[in-house]
C-alpha cells in the first residue's frame, strides 16, 4: 500500500495535471508544430512543483525521491496525457546522470528547464543488447559513431543520453545537442510528440556509466512507462464510464446493457492489476531486489496489454464519436501505442519475463 506521503503526492500530482495539463493541452501541443512536442511552460511548472526533479538529489536542487514517487508522477501525468518530457528527462536522464559530475545540468533538469532526449533504439527497433552505435575513447572523453531512431523528445532536446557499445560492453553517453558530428532529423509522431533520428559521426561524448547503469536506466524507464500507461488506462476508462452513464440509445443509457457492463467490469479488474503490478515493480526497484528485473518486465507487459484494451474499448464504446479527432479517446489510443513501443513492447517484455523465470 502507498504510504501517507505517497498518497498525498499522488493526490497533489493528480490535481496539478488535471488543472495545468488537461487533455486539451496535448491537443494544443500536437497542433502547434513549433512546440517541438512538449509544453515548455508545463515542464517549468513541474520544476516548481518538484516533479521534474523527483529523482534529482536534493543537493542538486531536486526532490531526492525514489522510483515509487517517480512512478506516481508518471501515473498522474498519464491520466491527462500531459505533454511533458518527464519520462525522457525527469526519469531516465536523471537516472543516467546520477553517477555525478553533472550538478549544473541536474539543477536545470530539476527546474524543468533542460530537456534531454533518449537515444536507445536503432533502425526502428529496441534491442539494447545488440547496439551498433560505437564509442571510442578520445582524450578526456570519447566519440560516438552510429545512428539512432525514435529518440524520445528528440526535437526539443538540448542534449542526449545515448546508449552505445564500447570495449567494455553497453554504456550510456551524454552528447550535446549542438555537438560536431551530430545531425538531427525531427519526426512528428502519432501522439503529437516529436522524436528525432540522430546520425553520429565521431560526435564528442562523455561516458556516464556501463552495463549496470544501462540496466538500471532501462528498468526505471520501463517501470515509469508502465505507470504512465496505467494512468492513461485510468484516464480513458473514466471517459468511457462517463459515456456509458450518459449516452442514450433505445431510450436508455447504454451502460444498462449487460454486454457493455461486463466488458467495462472486466476492464476495471484489469486496470486494478496493472496498477498493483506497476507499484510492486517500482517498490522492488526501490529496494534493489533480485526479482526486480522480472517484475519490471511483467509490469510493463501488463500495463501495455491493459492500456491497449482500455483505449480500444473506449473507442468502441464511444461509437462513431470515438472515431472523431474531436473526441479524446483517439488521443489516448495514439499515446498508448507509443508508450507500449517505448523501451520494448509487451511482447518483448514477456520475452524478458520468460527468460527471467528460467524458461
Amino acid at each position, binding site marked *: 500500500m502507498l504510504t501517507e506521503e505517497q498518497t498525498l503526492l499522488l493526490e497533489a500530482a493528480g490535481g496539478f495535471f488535471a488543472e495545468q495539463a488537461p487533455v486539451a493541452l496535448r491537443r494544443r501541443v500536437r497542433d502547434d508544430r513549433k512546440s517541438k512536442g512538449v509544453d515548455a511552460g508545463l515542464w517549468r511548472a513541474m520544476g516548481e512543483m518538484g516533479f521534474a526533479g523527483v529523482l534529482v538529489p536534493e543537493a542538486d536542487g531536486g526532490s531526492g525521491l525514489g522510483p515509487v514517487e517517480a512512478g506516481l508522477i508518471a501515473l498522474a501525468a498519464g491520466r491527462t496525457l500531459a505533454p511533458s518530457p518527464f519520462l525522457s528527462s525527469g526519469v531516465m536522464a536523471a537516472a543516467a546522470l546520477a553517477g555525478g559530475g553533472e550538478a549544473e545540468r541536474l539543477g536545470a533538469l530539476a527546474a524543468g528547464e533542460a530537456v534531454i532526449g533518449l537515444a536507445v533504439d536503432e533502425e526502428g527497433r529496441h534491442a539494447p543488447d545488440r547496439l551498433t552505435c560505437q564509442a571510442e575513447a578520445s582524450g578526456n572523453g570519447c566519440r560516438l559513431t552510429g545512428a539512432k531512431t525514435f529518440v524520445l523528445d528528440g526535437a526539443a532536446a538540448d542534449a542526449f543520453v545515448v546508449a552505445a557499445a564500447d570495449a567494455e560492453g553497453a554504456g550510456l553517453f551524454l552528447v550535446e545537442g549542438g555537438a560536431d558530428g551530430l545531425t538531427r532529423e525531427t519526426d512528428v509522431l502519432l501522439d503529437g510528440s516529436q522524436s528525432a533520428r540522430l546520425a553520429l559521426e565521431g560526435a564528442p561524448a562523455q561516458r556516464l556509466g556501463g552495463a549496470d547503469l544501462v540496466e538500471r536506466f532501462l528498468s526505471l524507464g520501463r517501470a515509469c512507462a508502465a505507470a504512465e500507461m496505467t494512468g492513461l488506462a485510468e484516464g480513458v476508462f473514466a471517459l468511457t*464510464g462517463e459515456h456509458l452513464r450518459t449516452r442514450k440509445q433505445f431510450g436508455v443509457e447504454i*451502460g444498462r446493457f449487460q454486454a457493455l457492463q461486463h466488458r467495462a467490469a472486466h476492464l476495471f479488474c484489469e486496470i486494478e*492489476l*496493472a496498477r498493483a*503490478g506497476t507499484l510492486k515493480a517500482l517498490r522492488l526497484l526501490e529496494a534493489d531486489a533480485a526479482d526486480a528485473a522480472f517484475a519490471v518486465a511483467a509490469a510493463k507487459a*501488463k500495463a501495455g496489454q491493459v492500456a491497449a484494451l482500455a483505449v480500444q474499448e473506449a473507442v468502441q464504446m464511444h461509437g462513431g464519436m470515438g472515431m472523431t479527432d474531436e473526441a479524446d479517446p483517439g488521443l489516448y489510443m495514439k499515446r498508448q501505442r507509443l508508450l507500449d513501443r517505448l523501451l520494448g513492447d509487451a511482447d518483448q517484455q514477456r520475452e524478458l*519475463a520468460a527468460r527471467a523465470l528460467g*524458461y
Partner: protein
Amino acid sequence: MIELDAFRAETRAWLEANCPASMRTPVASEEDMCWGGRDFVFQSQDQRLWLERMAARGWTAPEWPAEYGGGGLSHDQAQVLREEMARIGARPPLVSFGVWMLGPALLKYGTEEQKRKFLPPIVRGEIRWCQGYSEPGAGSDLASLQTRAEDRGDHWIVDGQKIWTSYADQADWIFCLVRTDPEAPKHLGISFVLFDMKTPGVSTRPITLISGKSPFCETFFDGVRVEKENLVGELNRGWDVAKYLLGHERAMIGAMGQAANARPLGELAAERLGRDDAGRLDQPMLRARLAEFDVDAFAFDAALEETGAALAAGRAHPAMASVLKYYGAELNKRRHELLMAAGGSDALEWEGARSNGGAAARDWLRTKANSIEGGTSEVQLNIIAKHLLRLPGA
C-alpha cells in the same frame, strides 16, 4: 517494523521447531488436506500434531481475537506468519469453511454467547461446517430461495432442499439460509440459522463431479427442528449476514489464483517437453502463453497483496472482493489449462499411483468450478458494474 522483525524471528523459530517434516511437503491432493470435524480420520500422526500445535496458538485462525481461541494477530503479523509458513512450504494445518466463512460472519453478527460456543471448536478443527445457500431453483438468484422455516414459538421447523452443498455428508453443522417471511420482498424474508447435521430430518445425497470426485451433495430438510438461539443476526435480515459471508468466501476463492510459492509453470513444462539450444522451452507457442499467464499471475499477486490488505482493514469497497474472486478464479482455470498442456500425455491419466490417482486431470476439471462456486464470474461482473462502476440499472 522492529516488533514485526522480532515477531518474524520468533515465528520462524517456532515453526522450525514445531512443523513436522512431513507437513512441509506439497499437498498432492484433497486427501492430504486436514478438514477436521467429529468424524475426521487423520492421515498421519504428524497431521494431527500439526493441527493441535497450530490450534493451541490460535494460528488456524490467526487474526481472530484470542478470547475466542484465535491467534489475536494483527494483519501484518498474520502476513508474516503466512510468509514464514510459505518459506518452509508448511501445509495449512486446517482447511475449514468455519475459518474462512462462518467465523468472520459470527464475529460481526453473532451474539457473545454464539461466539463463545461456536468459534473455539472451529479454531481447534473439532467441528466441520458446511454452507447451505444454493437451492435447485436459487443459484445466481440466491435470494429467491424457498427453504421454509416455520415459527413454532421457541424453535422453527425447517423444510426444503439445498443443493451443491460442499461436503454436506462430512460436515457436523450447517450454516443455512431459510425463508422466515414468505410474504416479504425476497431479500427481506430470509434468516441465517445454524444447526447440527445430525438433527432428525436432515439427509444428504452425494453428487459426482466431472472430476469423478464427489465433494458435494443434495441436502434435504424434512421437519428439522432449529432452536431460535441459533439465529445469527436479526430475524429476516439474514441476507446481510449472507452477503458479508460471501465477501469472505470470494476473497478466499480469489486467493486460489495466487501462485503461492509454486514452481514456475515454464520450468515444469521445460522439464517435460524439453528446451532448445538457447535453453528456452521447446514449444514457442506454449512458451508465449505461459509468459502471458506469468505476467497476469504476477499482477494478480500484487493486487491480492494490495487489495487484500485494504479489504481486511476495511479500507476498500467490499465489492473489491468480487474483483479478486473473478480474476483469481479465471486465472486458476488458466493455470490448470496450462498445466494440462505442460503435462503432455501423462496428464491424461485418470487412475493409478504414478499419476497420483489422475490428480492433474482431476484438478484441472475441478478448477472449472472456480468461476461458478461462490457466485459465478458473470455475477461478479454484475456486482462490479453496479457497486464499483455505478452503471445504471446494473
